[in-house]
């Protein structure tokens, strides 16, 4: 199964019944497979006129009651930013897949990269939080997609699946039976719909979302709004709203974050890496182990919110930290922030359209530590 295909399978499994999109390499297979499969599961597929419209359409569809997704790559992801911000503000669940390719701009459209890490967090204007997940295998793409829908329903928020071309186009043996009884979070209509407040001020949380057409009429807007969803200029309400939008994610970080650790629990080198790159890092780890280094790997699956609590715990046990990314340094900034030790976070970057080889990583590590730790 291909990575892009796993996303579609995972999404359908999670209950996705609406896809709106606009073709772009290397995400296009996701649209194509949705076009093929959705009619058979009672779902809808529509090719929109652009990515702005695609993002708008999935928000509309989600409000009308269907779990909805779109997929794109860098240029399209840039165009979606305004409406991603709308989804964040109006708290409409939806899933956006960004299969990263090399940028900036049109860049090298068929070549892999991980250059949208920071954009996925900060691409839209204004304060907000967002959940971003990044799988490193085809199997994980399937799993992460299901979790993306779950998290998006649970926290009423857009969730970004940050893939890269390598995983998107990779075909790998996958056994879906492993996920036999995976939980799927469905939208529940509360008992008491009389007093329904779509934007109830729940500390660090959200009210359930009742779809349009179910007899509960309310207002949805990108303006600052009160608990009923109606626009307001009340600065107290504004303060609480924005705080809640951020806190419902930041304060539930421990529920949201996923990561994997591998190798030593303490030692010389801690690698931090995600997505396809972590596969090269794992291979490099094997090499370095052979050469006697004590190596650990920390792989965030949840990129945002970043699992900083965990990293804070483990990094002091390593002498040197390497952030390996297919870009010129992005997650690096977050790691460097968390690690309160001068000069001990190092960047291993590659941004030329080629995938990392393990050997490059090994060499760079050795080069950087040739003068000892």
């Amino acid at each position: 199964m291909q990575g892009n295909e796993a996303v579609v399978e995972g999404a359908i499994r999670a209950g996705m019944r609406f896809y709106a999109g606009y073709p772009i390499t290397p995400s296009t297979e996701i649209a194509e497979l949705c076009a093929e499969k959705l009619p058979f599961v009672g779902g809808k597929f529509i090719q929109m006129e652009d990515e702005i419209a695609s993002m708008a359409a999935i928000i509309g569809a989600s409000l009308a009651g269907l779990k909805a997704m779109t997929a794109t790559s860098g240029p399209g992801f840039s165009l979606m930013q305004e409406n991603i911000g709308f989804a964040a503000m109006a708290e409409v669940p939806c899933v956006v897949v960004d299969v990263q390719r090399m940028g900036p701009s049109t860049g090298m459209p068929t070549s892999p990269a991980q250059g949208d890490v920071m954009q996925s967090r900060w691409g839209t204007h204004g304060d907000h939080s967002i959940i971003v997940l990044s799988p490193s295998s085809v199997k994980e793409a399937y799993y992460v997609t299901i979790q993306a829908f779950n998290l998006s329903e649970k926290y009423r928020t857009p969730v970004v699946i940050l893939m890269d071309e390598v995983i998107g186009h990779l075909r790998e043996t996958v056994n879906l039976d492993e996920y036999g009884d995976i939980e799927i979070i469905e939208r529940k209509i509360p008992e008491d719909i009389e007093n329904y407040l779509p934007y109830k001020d729940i500390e660090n949380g959200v009210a359930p979302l009742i779809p349009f057409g179910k007899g509960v009429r309310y207002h949805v807007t990108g303006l600052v709004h009160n608990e009923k969803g109606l626009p307001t200029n009340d600065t107290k309400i504004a303060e609480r709203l924005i705080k809640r939008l951020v806190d419902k994610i930041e304060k539930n970080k421990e529920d949201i974050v996923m990561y994997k650790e591998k190798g030593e629990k303490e030692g010389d080198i801690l690698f931090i890496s995600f997505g396809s790159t972590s596969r090269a890092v794992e291979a490099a780890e094997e090499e370095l182990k052979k050469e006697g280094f004590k190596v650990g790997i920390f792989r965030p699956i949840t990129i945002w919110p970043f699992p900083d609590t965990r990293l804070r715990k483990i990094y002091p046990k390593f002498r040197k930290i390497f952030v390996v990314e297919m870009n010129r340094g992005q997650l690096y900034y977050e790691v460097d922030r968390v690690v309160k030790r001068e000069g001990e976070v190092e960047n291993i970057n590659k941004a030329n359209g080629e995938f990392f080889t393990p050997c490059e990583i090994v060499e760079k590590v050795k080069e950087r530590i040739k003068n000892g730790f």
Partner: protein
Amino acid sequence: MASRLVEEYFRKETLPNIWCPGCSNGIVTMAIVRAIDNLKIGKDKVVVVSGIGCSSRASGYLDFNTLHTTHGRAIAFATGVKFANPELTVIVITGDGDNAAIGGNHFIHAARRNIDITVVMYNNHIYGMTGGQASPTIPRYDKATTAPYGSIDRDFDICKLAIGAGATYVARGTAYHVQQLVKLIEKGISHKGFSFIKAMSICPTYYGRRNKKGSPADMLKWLKDNSIDINKAAKMKPEELEGKIIIGEFVNIEAPEYTEEYQKMVERLKVSVK
């Protein structure tokens, strides 16, 4: 207490509205409500989607399922709503900036797809919400804050554009001719497919003041005096129609509707799989 229509279809707590004295947004909004009321479609299955602008604030006042989106994108959101649940009656409220400037692409594509959405565009020639800049529909040589020496752009005939894009119901009404406007909206909603109703509106605050168009009532009177019904216009010479607003139905044709076509495709596939 307020009128039956207000009690039934408005969120009273949100009134009075924020619009300027004499702004026709309220007139057109009430015309939409009258149309819905006449059609007896109830409130629960009606979704009103709007963009950003003075006109687009209408959605907040209305007691339907209401969705106030981003600037220019209302039709794209509405497409998602309608396609996800074709049982809903989806009405888009938009302005001339919202729909004819930034939102043009979604407009022509919805028209092309002939998806069953009714778009009512409040046409006041300017961007009201941001303080009176020129919109694409501003008459040539009229003034606006971004056209201080008179607009040099050719003004956009959005009905012609809608027809060019393949819309199957296209009409123009005015905030003066309320009864007719209600009828046109009613027909637009009943029409199966993409419907566009351009409602000629007035912005006394910006367009009116800068172009010395007098009081709100004067501006409505101007609409009255300069509008010609399409049936009457058909019998007139082009010179006589110069500078006039032709009102009525321009297009009303049947064509395959998008969500129905999708459903048909699904049925076909079911058969072919069996």
